[in-house]
Structure formats: structure tokens, C-alpha cells
């Protein structure tokens, strides 16, 4: 069953068409990889899904609901969570406070509840705290709860972002280059983490340049080049696709 579907999505910036008529779908429970050379439009697709950008044409549906035009926080409450390519943590806040951001929308209390410390508010705070700590344990940052986020090692910052996203209890998690800047050992751990996320029943859509990770973690790949989709299918099949090989070889020439 499709959880997320993109229909003929197009996005332009001035004269540049960053995403051109892209369609694909993500099955419930799957791990899908979105790959392609630098500047292919992958991140733009993510930003369209989570409503940071508005598409010029096309439609996005998630679990039967149309996402076009919804504000980002609304899309998150529908069950999509994300991480960012350039890590976006709340740098000056603690690790725990960062994860509590993910718990935010499931909580209710406001100004009065906080000022009067109403019982419902207290209970809610306790529950959120527990959930946040659980997520930290899950990604392996349980010991660092009171560290200030900016003092974390780079790989840990990436995992913290995942914990914050998981705290929203999403149905679909989208990860933008989760292994970016990680060493081999950390990447190995990340593959394990992605597996455990999938085991929780969370669908994963990820962008990644690290081909070993993509080949091992994903069941399906979607390949973009110059904003357009050039291939889609299981990793083994995509790997042999001549257009994909050409796209990557062409990209290799430049780098």
C-alpha cells in the first residue's frame, strides 16, 4: 500500500527547474532511497513534501490526505518527520530539550497551565520527558541528555536530529543525508539504526550519497538527475541501469 505518493511534481526557482515532473510512491513499511548527483533536486523534493517549499505543479498525498498548501507543522502532525541536510538543531539548548520539541505537538497545555502548574500539565510534562528519554536511548544518546547540543560530536548531532524526529511518533521518517560527515563505523551503526526504525513500523525515505548504505538499507531507489526522475526500482536493478551509470560517471568527472 502507498503511504506517500508524489504526482508530477514540479518546482522552479526563477529560471531554474529544480524538480521536473517527478512522480513516485513510497510503500508503507518500506525503506526507500532517493539518490542522484549534487544539485539533482533531492532536497527540494523533501522540502516540497514537508511544505517548506510550495510546488508549482503536481500533488502530494500522504495516507490519503493531500499535503499541498498545508503549513509545515500541520504536515508534521499528520505523521511525517524529517531531518535536515545541514544539521538544524537548537544549538544552545540541551539534547533533551531538543528531543522535547518533537513531543511538542502531542501536548496540550499552554501559558496558564504552565504558570499554575495544573495537574494535567505536570502529567503531560512527565510523559513527554519519558518519551524523549526513550528516544534518546533508542538512538544511543541516553547518557548525553543534559549536554548542550552544540557540544555534541558531529555524528551524535545527526543522531539527535533523528531522535527529535522520532519523538513526533511519525509514520514516515525522511532523512536528508543521514550519513553525511560520518565515518565508516558510525555509518555502520546508522544502518543498524535505520533497520530498527523500520522494525518499529516507521516507513523511511532517505537521501544518501553513500552507496554502500543505500544498497544495504533500501528496498527501492528513486534516481534524480537535473530535477527529473531517470530510474526507479530495486537497488540491484538500478545499479545496472545505463542512464544511472552515465549520470554518476558524468558527475564523477566533475568531482
Amino acid at each position, binding site marked *: 500500500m502507498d503511504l506517500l505518493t508524489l504526482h508530477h511534481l514540479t518546482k522552479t*526557482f526563477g529560471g531554474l527547474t529544480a524538480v521536473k515532473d517527478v512522480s513516485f510512491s513510497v510503500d508503507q513499511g518500506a525503506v526507500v532511497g532517493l539518490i542522484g548527483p549534487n544539485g539533482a533536486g533531492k*532536497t527540494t523534493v523533501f*522540502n516540497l513534501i514537508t511544505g*517548506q*517549499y510550495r510546488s508549482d505543479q503536481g500533488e502530494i498525498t500522504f495516507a490519503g490526505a493531500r499535503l499541498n498548501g498545508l503549513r509545515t507543522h500541520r504536515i508534521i502532525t499528520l505523521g511525517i518527520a524529517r531531518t*535536515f541536510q545541514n544539521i538544524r538543531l537548537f544549538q544552545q539548548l540541551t539534547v533533551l530539550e531538543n528531543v522535547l520539541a518533537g513531543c511538542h505537538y502531542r501536548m496540550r497545555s499552554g501559558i496558564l497551565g504552565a504558570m499554575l502548574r495544573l495537574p494535567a500539565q505536570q502529567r503531560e510534562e512527565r510523559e513527554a520527558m519519558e518519551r524523549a528519554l526513550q528516544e534518546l536511548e533508542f538512538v544511543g544518546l541516553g547518557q548525553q541528555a543534559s549536554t548542550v547540543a552544540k557540544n555534541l560530536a558531529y555524528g551524535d548531532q545527526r543522531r539527535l536530529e533523528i531522535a527529535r524526529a522520532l519523538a513526533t511518533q511519525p509514520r514516515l521518517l525522511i532523512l536528508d543525508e543521514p550519513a553525511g560527515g560520518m565515518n565508516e563505523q558510525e555509518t555502520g551503526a546508522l544502518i543498524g539504526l535505520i533497520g530498527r526504525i523500520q522494525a518499529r513500523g516507521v516507513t523511511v525515505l532517505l537521501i544518501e550519497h553513500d552507496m554502500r548504505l543505500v544498497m544495504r538499507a533500501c528496498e527501492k531507489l528513486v534516481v534524480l538527475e537535473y530535477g527529473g526522475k531517470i530510474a526507479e526500482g530495486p537497488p540491484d536493478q538500478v545499479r545496472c541501469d545505463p542512464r544511472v551509470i552515465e549520470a554518476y560517471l558524468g558527475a564523477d568527472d566533475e568531482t
Partner: protein
Amino acid sequence: MPATWRSFPFNLNYPGGFVEEFLQQLTNGLAVGGIYALIALGYTMVYGVLKLINFAHGDLFTYGAYLGLTLLTSLALTDRLGFFMGVLVLALMVMGLVAVLGAILERAAYRPLRGSPRLSAVVSALGASIFLQNTLMLIYGARFQVYPDNILPVASLDLFGLQIPLMRVLIVLASVVMMVALYLFIQKTKIGAAIRAAAIDQGAARLMGIDVNRVILLVFLLGPALGGAAGLMVGLYYGQINFTMGWVYGMKAFTAAILGGIGNIPGAMVGGLLLGVVEAMGAAYLSIAWKDAIAFCVLILILIVRPTGLLGERVADKV
């Protein structure tokens, strides 16, 4: 802003009726707008390169007015060189001195704060502004200072039957000349290109071999020079100056810079002129009592429609 007009009263009964009054207001608005634009350029250039609101810029403008007064009376330039040459030399001296002040300000108040939280620099700027104002007050006293009125011509220029005060014409001309010169300098010269590059991306500019520190220094020389000239113009135009006037003019000019799209040099020019004209018209035809609120009302309305100002680029934040 001083309510008294010395050489050319505001509320004459114009014999020519509506059209003439309208044209008088329009030219007056252009003169004031030119002054706003010159000050706004200083805000916008500094902002472009440093992303800093130089709150002390309005006070540099005031220094221009006071230095102009002191030099005018003490050196008797207009007696020796005649009116035009005298004022020209005076303007150059004022611009040079205020430019030096600007460079000192950058050294003392802003350079140590580069890389600090942005608001710290804002507070430092406010501190500098208070310091500069009160220094003037200690030297000159708190009262209005008056430009000597025997030095300046009270003549009017006859433009197609319209009597326009000479000083107003001069101010419009001088501000346009300075703006055009700055525009050409920024667009056509290598140094101008360096300023533009540093405004777009400091890091990249540095990699290209541009000495960003020198660009910043240059911007802190150019902006205050124009601001100082504007101060002198206000002194010559209205005849009265006060040590606190930098805040009102500074706020209006900053409004103009935002209106045009902060960081955008033609934007500051357009914003300044527009603001001057709208304000003059509003004061004349709507209400003089609300004059100082008009600029802000225009600003808010325009920002609601165009959140990045008139000429500011609309960019989607990269995520």
C-alpha cells in the same frame, strides 16, 4: 524636526493656487527625500556588508550639521571663496571629517564585536549613538544651533513661473549628483565590485582575494561621508540644528532603506525620495500633526504587501 522655517515659509498662500502649491510640496519633498536617501545609503551599505544596523549613523549625520556650522562660521569660507565655491569646499571638508569619524566608530564599537551575537553589536551601536549625542551636547549645549542667515542666499529660482528656493534646488541637485556618483562607483569600478561581492557572500569574497576588512572600512568611510553631507544640507536648508536630530532623521532614513529593500543601494535611493515626497504631501494635505507617523505607516503598509521592501529580492530561504 524644527517647526520653524527661516528662509522659505511652508504655508505661504500660493498665488498660483493648487497646482503651484502641489509643485512646491513636491520639490520640497524631493529635497527632503534626497537628504533621507543620502543617509539611507549609509545604513544600507553597512547593512549589506556587515548585516549590522548602524544605529549611530544618524548621529554622524548630526556631526555633519554641527561641523558644517562651526567650519562655516569660523573659516568664513563663503566670504573668501564666494557662495558656491565656499559651500563646495565646506561640504568636502565636512564629508572628509565625518568619514574619519565613521572609520573610528567602526574600529571602536563594531570591529571588536564581529562574530558576536548580532544584537550585541546593536546595543554597542546604541551606546555609541548616546555617546556621540551627548558629546555634542557638552560641546554646543542642548539648545538649537542656528546657521547664520546672512551668509546664505535667500534667492529663489524661477522655473517655468514657479518660484523655488535656490537652496532647495541645490539640495536636490547635489543629492542626485552624489547618488549617481555612488551608483557608478559601485557598479563600474573594481572596488565597487568588491563591495558588491562582500555584500553577497563575505566568505566567498575573501576566497576570491578580496580584503573584506578594507571593504568594510571603505563602507564606513563612504556612508558617513554621505550622511555628513546630508547633515550639512539640513543645516543649510532649515537653518536650525539640534544634537538629538540624528535619531529622527536616522529612523526615517533607516525606514527608507528598509522600504527600498535593505542592502540594496538603488533601493535606498528610491526609498528615500519616495519617503520624502510622501511625507511632504501627507503633512501638507492630510495632517501636519501626524507628519512623523506617516513614514512608519507607509513602511508598515508596504512591508505587509512586499515583506522584503520595494527592490529587495524575494528569496525562498534555503533549507
